């Protein structure tokens, strides 16, 4: 059990939850969160947003029963954290771009913190949220609202691109990166039951082989990801 320090509303339906404790995770890893008993049945996978001395934080959108319960947590309440889980972003080589779309910015603050020489692109369909934390720790952050953030990045200018966002954005980035020298890695979502590799519930086909998002992912090299599997969340 972990102790809630802060659970702030940053924008409509967007919350940042900060929990007390010494946590070690690599950028792109996630935890299974739970602050209820038997119902709802499953715990919720949420990416590590940031880690500081004595705290870990998560950035999430209220989109159903579980995240609504998370949003009701008050300082001093307890919750269960299981993790860190999965394989996060690799240590990038050369010139690096970090690209986030909407809620996909969640796992990228930790990446931005750990990669000060990168360029960060954050795109939003509507009003931006949670971007001040990026500006506070990184010198090269570009925020765009409306359109697609992919239009603001020239993949051939980079050796490595780390991305997270809606599936259509990932597809577009995969398409535009093809044929350039840039290596694209992105974090994907799939419904999960166990989160630890026991149930094979979260697989996505990559290069014709099933990979479990919770252990072999959530970050994958763009390669031959079967987007059909991802769309069928």
């Amino acid at each position, binding site marked *: 059990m972990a102790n809630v320090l802060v659970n702030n509303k940053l924008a409509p339906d967007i919350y940042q939850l900060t929990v007390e404790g010494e946590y070690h995770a690599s950028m792109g890893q996630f935890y299974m969160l739970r602050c209820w008993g038997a119902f709802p049945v499953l715990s919720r996978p949420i990416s590590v947003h940031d880690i500081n001395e004595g705290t870990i934080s998560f950035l999430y959108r209220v989109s159903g029963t579980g995240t609504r319960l998370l949003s009701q947590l008050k300082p001093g309440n307890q919750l269960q954290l299981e993790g860190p889980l999965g394989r996060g972003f690799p240590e990038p080589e050369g010139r690096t771009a970090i690209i986030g779309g909407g809620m996909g910015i969640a796992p990228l603050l930790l990446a931005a913190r750990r990669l000060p020489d990168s360029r960060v692109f954050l795109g939003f369909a509507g009003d931006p949220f949670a971007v001040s934390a990026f500006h506070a720790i990184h010198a090269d952050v570009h925020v765009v609202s409306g359109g697609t953030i992919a239009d603001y990045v020239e993949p051939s200018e980079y050796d490595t691109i780390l991305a997270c966002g809606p599936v259509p954005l990932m597809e577009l980035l995969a398409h535009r990166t093809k044929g350039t020298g840039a290596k694209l890695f992105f974090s994907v979502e799939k419904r999960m039951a166990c989160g630890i590799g026991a149930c094979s519930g979260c697989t996505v086909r990559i290069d014709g082989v099933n990979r479990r998002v919770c252990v072999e992912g959530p970050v994958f090299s763009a390669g031959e990801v079967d987007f059909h599997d991802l769309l*069928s969340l």
Partner: protein
Amino acid sequence: MISLACELAGVQLSNPILMASGTFGFGKPYAALYPLDKLGGIVTKGLTLQARPGNTGTRVFETDSGLINSIGLENPGIPTFLEREWEEMMQYGTAIIVNLGGGSIREYAEGAMLITEASRESKKNGRRAVDMIELNISCPNVKEGGLQYGVDTDRAREVVRAVRMATDLPLLVKLSPSARDLTEMARMCEAEGADGLSLINTIQAMAIDIRKKRSVFDGLYAGLSGPAIKPIALRMVHQVSHAVDIPVIGIGGIASAEDILEFIMAGAAAVQIGTYNFMRLRAGAALEDELRELMAQEGIRSLDEIRGII
């Protein structure tokens, strides 16, 4: 201290709490969380002779108090299991039950033979044998085999007979709640020489995505598990355990020590924990002690006192 040690189909178990097929992998994901020698035993993910890729699309879907899965028996195949996983499973210090699936009677029988040979070889070398085979004729998630054998008693008989001939290991048959006549099915298994019965497998179910106007699952239907199915499972375990003399392993929505006692009172010799592992990853580390505490509170000295009293 209350002893929970028990015997099941001729195999000595440290306690009657086993981990259900498909929810525990081959043990490894949980071995990283707690020592598995606390468990009564582990049932492997369903294995077939040939490797299977499983189903496409959405595979797990949460419902109120339940979980619908459409994994589709994804597994590495029995030969690869024996090569890569078996060695490590032997080290866990708990009973190993291999869950056997198949697409044809021949695949079932050959699979059973391979497991039996490997087990014999292992034992000859002074190591652990496979403790039991759990024959799965009740998987709702594959087109061929699986459930098609679990509904009709005559079709099921052919599989049970073939596998019984193929192995001298203790044999459990895992029954489906879709069996047309559950007690007839259970009595058939007993007559064909099964050493025990496991029930229930998931209940065939469905979910619809109203925006996409299609089933959530590529395979249309899938299998419901979790607390939602417990009352149905309990009734079926009660019914079957009063119809046969071989032990019955109760499965379905068990999520507490109280639930375990209910199944034992209904007549179960042992239980399996499935979906609860996802709700509480360390369930297996705690349930044995929680059961003991509950028994002490209730003044129950041994599970034999209450087994089948209802």
